[in-house]
């Protein structure tokens, strides 16, 4: 396999809060290869969004403190100067966000916001930036782009705004597009439009995608590889088919069991995971999932943090007692 575009090693993010230090991301490592879609799945508070904001260096420091390394084409972004980092953002690494209403500036036109990064990173003139902006709008499926380009965000529907965000993200041909819950604020039929659009554009352009979401249904449709995150750590990492067919981690298994599946048959009861996610200010010493896990034992799980065993080939699990399911 080729060298990864992006390598994240032992990334940690802590926040100073009134109640103490919140350990939000606790040492995560992964590689992203050209053209692949990696999905990081987790519930609220799992640290999934913070982990990508940290690698974009979009968190205010302080209160955040970031450690580890983020290698983009072999260069450590966490050591880059602010100036270098700015030349990476929007050009090599682009990002789209959850709420397209608030993520677009209400007093600037679509065209203004689209052209901005192109004139910055590609040095396009106003005219050519505008021409390209119209092309981009057309590419993301916005009808009459030559009219829409002069409109303001409030004149567009939610789905359209997210398309504009995607166009903005793709404007400088990034190597990596980071999508932070891009369909959570949208209705299902719009969500389907957006996921299909990103998949199609990825085929055409070939960028790698990191897709952050809480929705295991969306992941099933778009991801090549999936990472399940909980309590700031990775629980399981596998190819998408493997993960759904044979979840090895009790948490993954519980999550999948708790989902109502559309269909004629229904289970008597959905699986529930008792308890609450850990408090980032008071992380349990061992496995973060141990307090809620039916398989946990006091001697190992509550004391020793499980890590990925690299020998398990392409299906990694951080658990002392992984479920013995095979695909």
């Amino acid at each position, binding site marked *: 396999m080729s060298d990864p575009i992006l390598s994240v090693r032992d990334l940690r993010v802590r926040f100073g809060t009134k109640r103490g230090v919140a350990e939000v991301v606790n040492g995560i490592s992964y590689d992203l290869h050209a053209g692949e879609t990696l999905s990081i799945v987790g519930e609220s508070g799992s640290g999934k969004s913070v982990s990508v904001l940290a690698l974009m260096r979009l968190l205010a420091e302080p209160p955040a403190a970031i450690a580890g390394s983020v290698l983009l084409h072999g260069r450590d972004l966490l050591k880059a100067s602010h100036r270098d980092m700015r030349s990476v953002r929007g050009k090599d690494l682009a990002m789209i966000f959850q709420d397209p209403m608030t993520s677009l500036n209400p007093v600037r036109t679509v065209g203004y916001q689209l052209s901005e990064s192109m004139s910055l990173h590609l040095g396009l003139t106003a005219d050519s930036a505008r021409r390209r902006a119209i092309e981009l709008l057309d590419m993301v499926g916005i009808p009459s782009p030559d009219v829409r380009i002069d409109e303001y965000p409030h004149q567009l529907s939610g789905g359209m705004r997210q398309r504009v965000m995607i166009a903005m993200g793709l404007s400088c041909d990034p190597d990596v597009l980071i999508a932070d819950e891009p369909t959570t604020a949208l209705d299902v039929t719009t969500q389907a439009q957006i996921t299909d659009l990103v998949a199609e554009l990825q085929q055409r352009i070939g960028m790698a995608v990191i897709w952050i979401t809480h929705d295991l249904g969306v992941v099933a449709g778009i991801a090549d590889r999936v990472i399940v995150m909980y309590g700031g750590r990775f629980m399981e990492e596998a190819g998408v088919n493997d993960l759904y067919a044979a979840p090895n981690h009790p948490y993954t298994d519980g999550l999948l069991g708790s989902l109502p599946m559309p269909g004629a048959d229904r289970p008597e009861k959905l699986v529930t995971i*008792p308890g*609450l996610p850990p*408090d980032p200010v008071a992380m349990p010493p061992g496995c973060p999932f141990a307090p809620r896990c039916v398989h946990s034992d006091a001697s190992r799980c509550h004391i020793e943090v499980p890590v990925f065993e690299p020998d398990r080939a392409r299906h990694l699990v951080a658990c002392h007692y992984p479920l013995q399911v095979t695909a």
Partner: protein
Amino acid sequence: MTVAPSTPMERLPEKPVSRSREIWQTLIANRLAVAGLVVLALLVLMAVLAEVIAPFGINDIDIPNRLTGPSMSHWFGTDDLGRDVLSRVIIASRVSLQVGFIAVGFALAFGVPIGLVAGYYRGKTDSILMRLMDILFSFPAILLAIAILAVLGPGIRNAMVAIGLVYTPIFARITRGSVIVVSEEVYIRAARSLGARDGRIIFRHILPNVLAPIIVQTTLSLAFAILSEAALSFLGLGVQPPNPAWGRMLAEGRNFFQQAPWMGIFPGVAILVTVMSFNFVGDGLRDALDPKQKSVIESRGQSV
């Protein structure tokens, strides 16, 4: 009824944090607010014990010692009639605080009910009440107070009425605005879905939830009511001689400014410190009670 079988008992984190305690902790963590609170406590104490503390009588005229600068016997110097400036500043604190509290009390007593009714019932009642408030708002505040005093005649009692009237629309607006926001809250709909009456909704659900901005506004308004009183007294429309008031003392001091600057400096500092203390406490309270609320110094826009 029995316990439903498959529902897990969920546990709460052990330490409950009481809300009042949290508010208090946030407030005292704010050093400026604490400083303000201490100064205000001392001020109130000083006002209560004014006669005991003041080294001289307020009208102890001592012509031979007129216009003497600060000294061991007269810490703040003496005025044109040889009266002790310190004693007069101390006694005057009483008037300032009294006018502030009574005027703001007046504004609260009228403004809050108007705002509650207008915000809860909306419609025509709201339009009429708020248009009336708007008219009062169409005047620069001090000008309205001056006009009222011109008609009612100068004096401390009329000054309280005038300031109170000028501040009423601020409370009406703030209350109304908060009531409208709270009325849209889901828990109000929840109460309604349970069959609660209007009275219950207003007094049990809305009022407790709009108190925070009203309390903050009260504190800040006290600051500006004191400023207004001082300005009115300075213009000769508030407290009448020979009773001392900070604003009035300043006006009297103006004529002797070059010979005896202390006559004007000390009463001014007294006003500044008092007003600043109320502001610090108000800002601190806002941060503690209602972090989302925007700065309400808008009231200054409507005062003085």
